[in-house]
């Protein structure tokens, strides 16, 4: 830096921020400088302290030391209200919307300009509509939150911040829950916002996204800043190295494996969704021991319901599900687990964890009543603690504090805990749904290797993921799902991404190969 530091040069200047949690130094003298009108990426490993840093900018946490300037003015934030008044808006890693209210109601909720709800709502509806149109967000303001997909919900969160007059938007891992299509749309919105002069701080683990939309990058590692880069002048490899501190394989090497006997057989399975409509419409498939079977598809085409039916969380109303030669249709999660099922759920907060439990309780969820963790109804805390420590060591869950409530783990470390628990339960059949959602590249590499290792240990693996890359690189066979049905069964090496895209849009394999052949 040639010039003396002047906070007025920046929309956001966080200088020398330090934040200590019990046993964890989450931010260690961190400096983040964001210029007005730029999209600024903050990247870093799970637990690097990104969310913590942003929570301090949004007034949810107070720094132990350090200064925060917004548009050159030093702020002493006592709560989110102060941050909102200073023009800061935040979309959290885990959304905070009220399900059974409409979009407009959610946006007005907690806003300052409250003058009789009805009057306010009418006005709000108009204003929200205007905002939505001017930035191309296309949100139906009268829809209920529970009825709109995640991607839309996220736009509602963005609208909420804009409605409150945000000039600076913080987006904490917004793309983790989005389909590639939705991600592309989000980027369009972000670019529009940037054109309108808004400043955006964007947290992500996906380096291609960093390359695609951002202007600058701040890299964090173990609470410290390890790099300040200009996007145009860097590349994913360099960012990855700064993040992890070593070279990372951006793609795993897969050895061929000879599958064994059929472990899972599903025949003409029909499953309804929450609104009682058919979500899975008669799918049939099999998974063999030592084989990874992928299910590819755009989110919302019945994958969630299929997984829930296979894992005992939802009833199938027709069809047959065989596991190791036994009919297990509509058995409970417990009975399926006893027969060798493990399950990494897509929603770690809803299903994967009891957030209020300490980590060592969550580490045995599903096996909490079995030896060696439990003997004649009494939990053996020593054994459980020891087991948890080993699990944390093997899967690098940080910080390694078994007694800490899981709610205090960073998002990625929560995911690692779930993955660690399920993969270590010696399953015969494992259903893996969005395993790497929210994980950093180092962790993804490790999880991918572990999935392959499970396969090589003769486990039957069903992998459901919205990351097409992930499905394509790990699976031995892939079923493509569209509107509750399979449009094709393919081997990853025999299809192109383009063909996969066509099948995911509803074209059958025969059609796809037909068109390709006639071209």
């Amino acid at each position, binding site marked *: 830096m040639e010039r003396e530091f002047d906070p007025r040069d920046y929309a956001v200047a966080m200088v020398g921020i330090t934040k200590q949690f019990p046993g964890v130094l989450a931010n260690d003298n961190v400096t983040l400088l964001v210029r007005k009108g730029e999209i600024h990426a903050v990247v870093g490993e799970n637990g690097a302290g990104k969310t913590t840093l942003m929570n301090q900018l949004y007034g949810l946490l107070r720094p132990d030391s350090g200064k925060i300037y917004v548009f050159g003015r030093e702020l002493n934030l006592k709560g989110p209200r102060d941050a909102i008044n200073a023009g800061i808006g935040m979309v959290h890693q885990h959304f905070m919307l009220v399900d059974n209210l409409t979009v407009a109601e959610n946006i007005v909720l907690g806003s300052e300009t409250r003058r009789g709800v009805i009057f306010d709502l009418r006005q709000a509806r108009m204003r929200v509509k205007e905002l939505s149109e001017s930035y191309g967000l296309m949100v139906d303001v009268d829809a209920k939150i529970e009825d709109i997909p995640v991607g839309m919900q996220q736009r509602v969160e963005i609208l909420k911040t804009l409605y409150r007059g945000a000039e600076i938007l913080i987006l904490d891992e917004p793309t983790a829950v989005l389909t590639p299509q939705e991600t592309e749309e989000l980027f369009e919105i972000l670019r529009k916002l940037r054109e309108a002069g808004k400043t955006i701080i964007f947290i992500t683990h996906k380096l291609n996204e960093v390359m695609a939309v951002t202007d600058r990058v701040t890299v964090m590692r173990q609470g410290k800043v390890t790099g300040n880069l200009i996007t145009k002048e860097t590349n994913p490899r360099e960012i990855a190295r700064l993040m992890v501190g070593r070279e990372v394989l951006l793609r795993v090497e897969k050895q061929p494996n000879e599958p064994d006997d059929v472990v899972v057989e599903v025949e003409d399975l029909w499953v309804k969704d929450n609104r009682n409509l058919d979500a899975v419409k008669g799918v049939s498939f099999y998974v063999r021991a030592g084989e990874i079977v992928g299910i590819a598809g755009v989110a919302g085409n019945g994958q969630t319901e299929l997984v829930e039916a296979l894992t005992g*969380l939802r009833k199938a109303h027709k069809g047959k599900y065989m596991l190791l030669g036994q009919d297990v249709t509509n058995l409970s999660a417990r009975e399926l687990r006893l027969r060798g099922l493990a399950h990494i759920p897509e929603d770690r907060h809803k299903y994967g964890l009891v957030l209020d439990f300490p980590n060592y309780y969550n580490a045995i969820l599903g096996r909490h009543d079995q030896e060696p963790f439990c003997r004649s109804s009494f939990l053996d805390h020593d054994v459980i603690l020891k087991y948890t420590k080993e699990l944390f060591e093997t899967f690098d869950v940080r910080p390694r504090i078994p007694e800490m409530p899981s709610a205090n783990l960073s998002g990625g470390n929560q995911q690692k805990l779930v993955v660690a628990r399920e993969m270590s339960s010696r399953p015969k059949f494992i259903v893996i749904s969005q395993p790497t959602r929210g994980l950093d590249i180092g962790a993804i590499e490790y999880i991918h290797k572990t999935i392959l290792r499970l396969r090589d240990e003769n486990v039957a693996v069903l992998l459901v993921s919205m990351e097409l890359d992930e499905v394509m690189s790990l699976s031995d066979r892939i079923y493509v799902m569209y509107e509750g049905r399979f449009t094709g069964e393919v081997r990853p090496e025999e299809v192109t991404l383009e063909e996969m895209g066509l099948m995911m849009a509803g074209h059958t394999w025969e059609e796809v190969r037909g068109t390709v052949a006639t071209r």
Partner: protein
Amino acid sequence: MIKSQQRIYAVLVPLLSVIIALLIAAVVIVLVGNDPLKAYWEMLKGAFGGAQEIANTVVKTTPLILTGLAVGFGFRAGVFNIGAEGQMAMGALFSTMVAMNLGSMPSVFAIPITLLVGMGVGAGWAAIAGALKAFTGAHEVISTIMLNWIAYYLGNYMVAAPLAVGSGTPKSPEIAPSAKLPPLLTVHATELTSGIIIAVIAAVVMYVILEKTSVGYEVKAVGFNPYAAEYGGISIAKNVVLSMAISGALAGLAGAVEAMGVHHRYLGALTAGKGFDGISVSLIGQNNPIGIIFAAFLIGSLRTGSNAMQFLGVSKHVVMIVQGIVIFLVAAERIVRTIMIYLRFRRREAGMES
């Protein structure tokens, strides 16, 4: 480090709340034209002034521990058992009916049987609400309140007609002497019954169940996050019914102990709101078995002491005010906690500047 801090807060918050509550109540006492210091002194003497006073306090504390545990266990398991009152009544009623007929049985059998009947009936009564919740989704707050009324009128009817003896207050016959809880000590007319031992054992058992067993693990999981519980192979329906049953068993035990140790019979006024007090007790005790013992003792002594205070012309409603404020402050412990954190923050900032 985190743990010890939490523990300090757990003690400090209720303690501070009591002090603040007493200060506010003092203002009320002044307003009604009395001397708060004198009133509190009388109250103190009334609760702890002598052997009889202490015995009285312990007798009042005993059922409160048990109903407090009942409600507290429910809270930990995510069910809101408002029905401790009715479960206690049913426990007392049925254990009395059994104990009336145990004349020929030695105490070693008669006492455990009677206690078990009280627990079993309380458990069953509460399990009705649990099953309604588990299988029809009926909210336990509504169903337990309705079950309270049913229990109340059933009890009144039983002592008014089929079981009625003597004149005056409707009451049942005395239970067999062998089924009475032996007094630990007798001062004048007051018997300090061994019920307190049962209550303390119950607290220990509840602690063990919650913290050391897979049953506790499961009910807590269901209470915190039913989705994750189900995912982990834990049956929500089973655990909702079980949580209500355990909660009800503790309330039923309160009824049995009260019948066997204090009244030696069933009468309509036996429960007298002790089931509802259990809600306050568990709130003040922060659903922690040890905390509940202390909270019950606090409420018990305030109650006993208030009788003495009345001689000075201070209404015993003042005690209700104290109790109300304590609960309010503990329930709103965030307020106290926030003030404390704020003060510390201020102090540290001041320290940094200097």
